[in-house]
C-alpha cells in the first residue's frame, strides 16, 4: 500500500545563470581581494583595466564588510557604514601616500601598504571599543573583524583609484591631479556607493548575498566608465588615450552584463512580477 503524503512539497525550479558564485565564502573573498588588491596597488605601472579588476574585487570585499557590519538588523544606518569605510579609506590613502616614497623601486610603491595596515588596526580598535564590555558594549557579532576589513578595503579602493587616475602614487602627482582638481569628491562618493548601495538596495528579510554582489559589480562597471572619462580628460596615463578608452569599453560591458543579471535575478526571485494589477489586501 502506498501512502501519498498529505502535502506534496513543490520544489522550486532552480534558476540558471542567476547565481554569481565567485568566491563562495566571505573569508575567501577577503583573502583573495586583499592579496590581489595589495599586489595591484604596489605595481603602479600596470594598465588601468588590470587596476580596475583589482578595484572591482576590493569593492566587492568592501560591500561584504558593510553587509557583515549591518546584517544584525541595521536599517537606515547602512549608508553611514559605507561612508565610514570610505572615510577610513581617504585617511588611510593619504597616510600611505605620505610614506610612499620610502622604499620605492621604480614604479613599485610597497610603502603605501602602511596606510592599509594602519587603517586595519584603527578599524579593529574602533570595533573593539564599540563592542567591548567596558566601553560602548554594543555586542554586535563579528563587528571587530568587519570594521577592520572596512578600513582595509576602503583604503585599497581609494589608493587604486588614485593610481588609475594619475598612473603613479607619487604624493605630488596625486595632490595635483586628484585633490586640487576636485576629483577626490568623485572617488569618495562612488566608493561610498559601491560599498553601501548594494546592501541598502537589497535590504530585507529575503536578501541574498549573491544577488547583492551582482549589484556591487554593476556599480564597479559604472565607476570604470567615469574613471575612464576622467583619465582621458586628465591625460596622465603612460599608455595614452587607449588606457581611458579601454576602461570605458570594459566598464560598459561589465555594467550591461551585470545590470541585466541583477534585474533578472530580482524579477525572478521576488514574490511576483506583473505588468500591472490592483493591490490585494492581506489580513
Amino acid at each position, binding site marked *: 500500500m502506498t501512502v501519498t503524503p498529505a502535502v506534496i512539497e513543490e520544489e522550486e525550479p532552480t534558476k540558471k545563470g542567476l547565481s554569481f558564485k565567485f568566491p563562495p565564502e566571505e573569508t575567501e573573498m577577503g583573502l583573495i581581494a586583499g592579496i590581489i588588491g595589495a599586489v595591484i596597488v604596489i605595481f603602479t605601472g600596470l594598465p588601468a583595466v588590470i587596476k580596475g579588476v583589482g578595484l572591482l574585487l576590493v569593492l566587492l570585499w568592501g560591500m561584504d564588510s558593510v553587509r557583515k557590519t549591518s546584517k544584525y538588523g541595521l536599517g537606515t544606518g547602512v549608508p553611514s557604514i559605507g561612508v565610514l569605510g570610505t572615510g577610513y579609506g581617504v585617511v588611510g590613502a593619504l597616510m600611505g601616500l605620505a610614506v610612499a616614497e620610502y622604499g620605492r623601486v621604480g614604479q613599485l610603491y610597497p610603502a603605501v601598504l602602511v596606510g592599509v595596515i594602519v587603517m586595519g588596526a584603527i578599524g579593529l580598535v574602533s570595533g573593539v571599543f564599540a563592542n567591548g564590555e567596558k566601553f560602548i558594549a554594543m555586542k554586535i557579532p563579528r563587528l571587530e573583524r568587519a570594521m577592520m576589513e572596512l578600513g582595509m578595503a576602503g583604503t585599497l579602493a581609494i589608493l587604486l583609484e588614485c593610481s588609475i587616475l594619475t598612473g603613479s602614487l607619487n604624493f605630488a602627482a596625486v595632490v595635483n591631479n586628484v585633490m586640487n582638481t576636485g576629483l577626490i569628491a568623485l572617488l569618495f562618493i562612488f566608493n561610498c556607493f559601491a560599498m553601501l548601495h548594494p546592501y541598502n538596495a537589497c535590504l530585507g*528579510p529575503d536578501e541574498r548575498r549573491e544577488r*547583492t554582489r551582482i549589484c556591487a559589480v554593476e556599480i564597479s562597471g559604472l565607476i570604470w566608465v567615469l574613471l575612464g572619462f576622467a583619465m582621458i580628460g586628465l591625460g596622465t596615463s603612460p599608455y595614452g588615450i587607449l588606457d581611458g578608452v579601454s576602461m570605458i569599453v570594459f566598464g560598459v560591458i561589465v555594467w550591461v552584463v551585470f545590470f541585466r543579471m541583477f534585474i533578472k535575478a530580482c524579477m525572478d526571485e521576488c514574490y511576483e512580477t*506583473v505588468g500591472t494589477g490592483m493591490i490585494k489586501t492581506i489580513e
Partner: protein
Amino acid sequence: MPIEVVLLFAWMLVIAFLAFIACTFEDLESDMGSQSNPNSQVQLAAQVGQVNRFFNKAISGEPLSNAMYCVTAGTIAWLLLRQFEPLVPGEEWKAAVLAIPIGVLAATMINMIFSTTAHCGRVAGQKRFQQPIYLDVLYGHLIPIGAHAFMTTLCITCIAYIQSNIGTLSGNPALNHPFALPLLGFIWGITVGAIGSSTGDVHYGAEREFQDRPFGEGKRVVYHGKITRYAECGVRTQKDIAGFCAKFGGPVTGMTFGLIILFENWRSMVGMQLGGFLPALPAFTATGDMAAIFGIVLGLLIVAALMVGNLVFVKWVRKKYGPFVGV
C-alpha cells in the same frame, strides 16, 4: 557703489534663486520616489500586510545620493569645460551652456540606474510579504524621478559653476572660489539633500497622514502603512503625492534652502563691504579680521531675529490649534 560690488550682490541673488528651485525639485523628487523619510512608510507598509503600488527608491539617504548626482554632473561638466573653453576664448559662457546640461544628463541617467536597482532589489528582498514588482509602477515613475532630479542637479551645478567663477563674472578674478567644480558640487549636493530630507514631507505629516488626529498626536506603527494604499479616488501612486506636495511642501523646502543661502551669502558680502574688502581684495591684513567680525555680528543678529520669529509663530500656532497632546 562700484559696478563690481553691485554685480557680486546680483550674482548672489541669482544663486539664492537657483537654490530655491533646486530644493523645491529635490523635495518633490524624494516624494516621487520615496527616499529617506517617506521611505520608512513604504518599506514598512508591505511588512504589515499593506501591499502597495509605490516606488521604493532606497538609493541611500538623500544627502549622499544628491551629492552623487551633483558630483557626477560637476565632474563631467568640468572635464568638458576643460576641453571646450580653449575653443571659444573670450566667450567661455558658450562652453558652459553646452557642458553643464551634458553633465547633468549623465547624472540623471545614473540616478535612474540606481533607482531601478534600488526598487527591484528592495521588492525582491521582501518576497515573504507578497509584494510584487509592478512593471508599470517601475517604468512610470522612472521618468518623473529623472525629470525632477534633472532640475535639481542642473540648478546645483549652475550654482557651483557661478561660485567657482564668481570673481571672473563680476570683474575681479581674485574673488573666484578656491574649490574646483566637482568639490563644490559635492558640498552643495550634501546640503541640498540634507535640507530636502529634513523639511517639507507634508504628505507624511499633519497635512495628510495625521489629518484626523488631534494636534500633535501620533499613530500606531501598524497603521502607518495605510497611507500607501488608497487615494481620494482609486489606488494611490506617488504621482499623486508629487502633485499634492508641489502645492506646499516643495516650495516651502525650497524657501528654506533659498533663505539659508541668501542670509549666509548676504551677511558675508555685507561684512566684506563694511570691512573694506570690496571691490579690490587687499592682502591679508587687519581689515580681514574686521570683515569677518562684521559678518559674524550680522549672522548673529539674523539668527536672533529668526529665533524670536519662530517663538512668536509657535506660540500663535499652539494658541490657535490647541496644545500638543503629548505635552
